[in-house]
């Protein structure tokens, strides 16, 4: 894998060799995912029902949105630890403007998204201007934003939200839960951005070799701004949907979500050293995490063991992935 990253003969776009490796890596995870699903459907007859699968996708959607955002960031070689706190701030902001008979539902939605985009831009700005590593910058904003969520909400959950607002993340359109609709749209849009746009190709180039990318005339700073804005915006969207789904804006919501999102991206084949990763892989990674936790709940496995099983499966999936990449 290192060879691939260290030899960016063509800084813009990827060679077919690279693309193939990525595809095969994805299959490794896909195989693991299918095996786990098969195993669960054998052990528990309740697993493979339309209703249960729908519930899994709903439960996964919040983490998947965050994971899509952080995938952009990790592809450029960065990291975003602030997304869990952005979920909380966006949720608190949305909830503050979502009481019944106050503002139309677009107001909390727009304000929350603007908040996420603004803090994403702040991350990007500090990272590109100060040369402080993204890990440190976003660790700082993670703490700042958690504090901000507590300040805005005075440490208490904000409830009594309007029905229209609760519909956003809790409702259904033509029998399909809104969460799933949003997830599908976000997946398609993120895939297009990453694979079909110039910006997307620049993201791979920056993550593959930043200096080469800069030498070939790519405005690295602009690309980095874009990924942190995308990450912040998607995190805010996730925050609004979570707040809407549980009908309350909680200042401590989203704590630890950043790690689940990063795990989903990494399980899905995104390399933390940058330059590789796909939205499909990330989606499968998120689904894998969701399937495991749902399956273990169905089997009533004690939560002590659940954590152990989850960790083993995360590492196992990544080992399988790397073996798959080497043999090909």
């Amino acid at each position: 894998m290192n060879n691939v990253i260290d030899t960016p003969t063509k800084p813009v776009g990827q060679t077919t060799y690279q693309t193939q490796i990525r595809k095969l890596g994805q299959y490794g995870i896909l195989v693991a995912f299918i095996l786990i699903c098969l195993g669960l459907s054998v052990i528990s007859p309740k697993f493979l029902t339309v209703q249960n699968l729908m519930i899994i996708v709903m439960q996964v959607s919040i983490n998947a949105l965050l994971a899509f955002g952080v995938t952009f960031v990790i592809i450029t070689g960065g990291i975003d630890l602030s997304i869990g706190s952005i979920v909380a701030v966006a949720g608190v902001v949305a909830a503050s403007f979502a009481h019944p008979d106050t503002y139309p539902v677009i107001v909390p939605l727009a304000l929350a998204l603007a908040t996420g985009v603004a803090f994403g831009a702040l991350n990007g700005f500090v990272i590109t201007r100060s040369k402080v590593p993204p890990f440190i910058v976003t660790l700082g904003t993670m703490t700042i934003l958690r504090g901000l969520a507590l300040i805005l909400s005075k440490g208490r959950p904000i409830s009594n939200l309007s029905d229209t607002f609760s519909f956003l993340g809790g409702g259904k359109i033509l029998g399909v839960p809104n969460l799933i609709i949003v997830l599908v749209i976000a997946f398609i849009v993120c895939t297009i951005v990453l694979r079909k746009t110039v910006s997307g190709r620049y993201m791979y180039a920056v993550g593959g070799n930043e200096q080469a990318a800069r030498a070939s005339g790519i405005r690295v700073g602009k690309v980095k701004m874009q990924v942190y804005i995308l990450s912040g915006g998607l995190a805010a969207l996730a925050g609004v949907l979570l707040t809407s789904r549980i009908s309350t804006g909680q200042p401590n919501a989203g704590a630890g979500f950043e790690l689940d999102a990063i795990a989903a991206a990494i399980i899905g084949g995104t390399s933390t050293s940058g330059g590789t990763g796909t939205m499909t892989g990330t989606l499968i990674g998120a689904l894998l995490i969701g399937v495991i936790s749902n399956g273990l709940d169905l089997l009533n496995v004690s939560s002590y063991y659940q954590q152990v099983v989850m960790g083993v499966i995360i590492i196992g999936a990544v080992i399988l992935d790397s073996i798959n990449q080497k043999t090909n």
Partner: protein
Amino acid sequence: MKHAFKPLLVALTLLAVGCSQSASDSKTDSADGKKLVIGASMLSMQHEFVVNVHDEMTKKAEETGIELITVDAERSAIKQVEQIESFIAQNVDAIILNPAEVEACSPAVSKALAANIPIINVNSETGVKPTAFVGSDDVEAGRIAMQYLADKLGGKGNVVMLEGYMGQAGQLKRAQGAMEVLKKYPNMKMLANQTAEWDRAKGMALMENWIQAYGNQINAVFAHNDEMGLGAVKALVDAGLKDKIMVVSIDAIPDALQAMQKGTLDATVFQNAQQQGAKAVETAIKAAKKQPFDKETLIPFQLVTKENMAQFVKK
């Protein structure tokens, strides 16, 4: 990651300790010199119940004209021990401790006792006995909630239990109380129990999964706090099962009372944050002034149902 940042955290804490120390020193000097100073270390100011207890402590402090210095332990026992050490160094007149852990916070209590500073535990216990304890018995809360379900179900049926953060006193004791009651009813069965970490979204997800696993077999749900209970309610309403399955939880937060008004939550158990906060400060003042005080103040839990909920809405 946690480990990598421990040195950083320790450094920051030391810095904070240093700052707060000099700040309070100047205050006591400038004040009339006789004003009592009480230091309070709270489990987590992100926790609504703790915030409510603390609000009442502040109110009581203002009424009685004492100075209350509050620090937030952010759920860390280590941090809490360091905070108590700094209170001892500041030579406060009394300490109020809202412990983060049963055993890990015990050194804080021992140190305060060794320094002859009265230390009052509020809300939860530590392994080492403090000067006085003000709080409620969580076993009782679990008992009240499960007894309610047993009565409503006529001593027959299947229950699932959403538990608090595993290993915390609140989770262990509420589960213990519930199991005690369950033992008396051979026809009642615990179908499944799992932690949802006191969290509404996690409670909702867990309940959704249980509905898939057990569906109509479930007769009632007991959640260790209202947040998880409300998550379970949401999952049951979405699945169209709320009319068939009862939910009882603990805390009586405003949201829970509102849900009861709507008829979605069946009952909750009220833990009196106000009285705990007020009694803690009162006891601390008495102990500091060497007046007689109660070694243990237990504030009873109360079952809240639709019939008696009006009196709790105002509180």
